[in-house]
């Protein structure tokens, strides 16, 4: 089973992201679960969402304490929230940031990957510069980096479940996927 945690702000789409990811994995024939830790969060406040992916039915309905992946939609959050909490030593933290992954020193074992997908999202007209909607772009990058879902499934999932602008989101995700590809080649990372 793979467990993924999303960090975002109220209104940024972290919850949709967890659902879309689950949906994508479902399209690949896997069992999935996506949920949120609600604290009746308001617009702007930090929120958490989760996805579980497995090859057999998922019956565990308790929360995720030790994620395999952490996806941070807004790098600013990392200043206030312990985004690396519980991350498995073998895990990956993905941060949407134009800074370098290494500059975030969350956890000595888990690897940190940083990529600026905000610009991608904005390019496709998702949100505004002050509140970009980056969730699908993050997923695109994540799909490539983690290899947990294939691009086609992801794009189909976005098309089927994005709350608005499906095509724009699909395009953004695709571009982010490709950017991640480049980034990996550049960083010499294989999966």
């Amino acid at each position, binding site marked *: 089973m793979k467990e993924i945690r999303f960090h975002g*702000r109220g209104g940024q789409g972290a919850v949709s992201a967890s659902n879309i990811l689950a949906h994508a994995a479902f399209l690949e024939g896997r069992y999935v679960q996506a949920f949120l830790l609600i604290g009746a969060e308001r617009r*702007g*406040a*930090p929120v958490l969402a989760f996805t579980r992916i497995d090859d057999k039915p998922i019956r565990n309905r308790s929360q995720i304490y030790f994620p395999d992946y952490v996806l941070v939609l807004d*790098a*600013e*959050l990392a200043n*206030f929230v312990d985004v690396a909490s519980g991350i498995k030593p073998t895990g990956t933290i993905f941060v949407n940031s134009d800074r370098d992954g290494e500059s975030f020193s969350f956890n000595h074992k888990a690897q940190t990957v940083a990529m600026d997908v905000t610009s991608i999202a904005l390019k496709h007209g998702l949100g505004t*510069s*002050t509140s970009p909607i980056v969730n699908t772009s993050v997923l695109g990058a994540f799909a490539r980096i983690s290899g947990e879902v294939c691009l086609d499934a992801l794009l189909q999932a976005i098309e089927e479940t994005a709350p608005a602008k499906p095509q724009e989101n699909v395009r953004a995700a695709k571009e982010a996927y490709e950017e991640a590809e480049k980034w990996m080649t550049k960083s010499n990372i294989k999966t």
Partner: protein
Amino acid sequence: MDDEIKYKNVKELPPMTVSTGLMLVNKTGSWRSLRPIIDEDKCISCMICWKYCPEACIDIVDDKPVINLDYCKGCAICAEECPKEAIEMLEEGK
């Protein structure tokens, strides 16, 4: 009433859900993605920003508005309402 309250176990709890501390412990500055910057030169101390701030986080210091960034959520109402356009909203982290 302004301090942090740390209950360690049930025996320390009051008998019911009674709140005795202030939410000042909750630094809502972390919510902000835009940061208001007051241009002191433009500012005429009309205190309209103070008046409309939903966070009550603009202090009056020496007759001038001073934003407490611990709490400012970056809603930009102050900037919108300032008659002198003396407040600019900058992206956080930029």
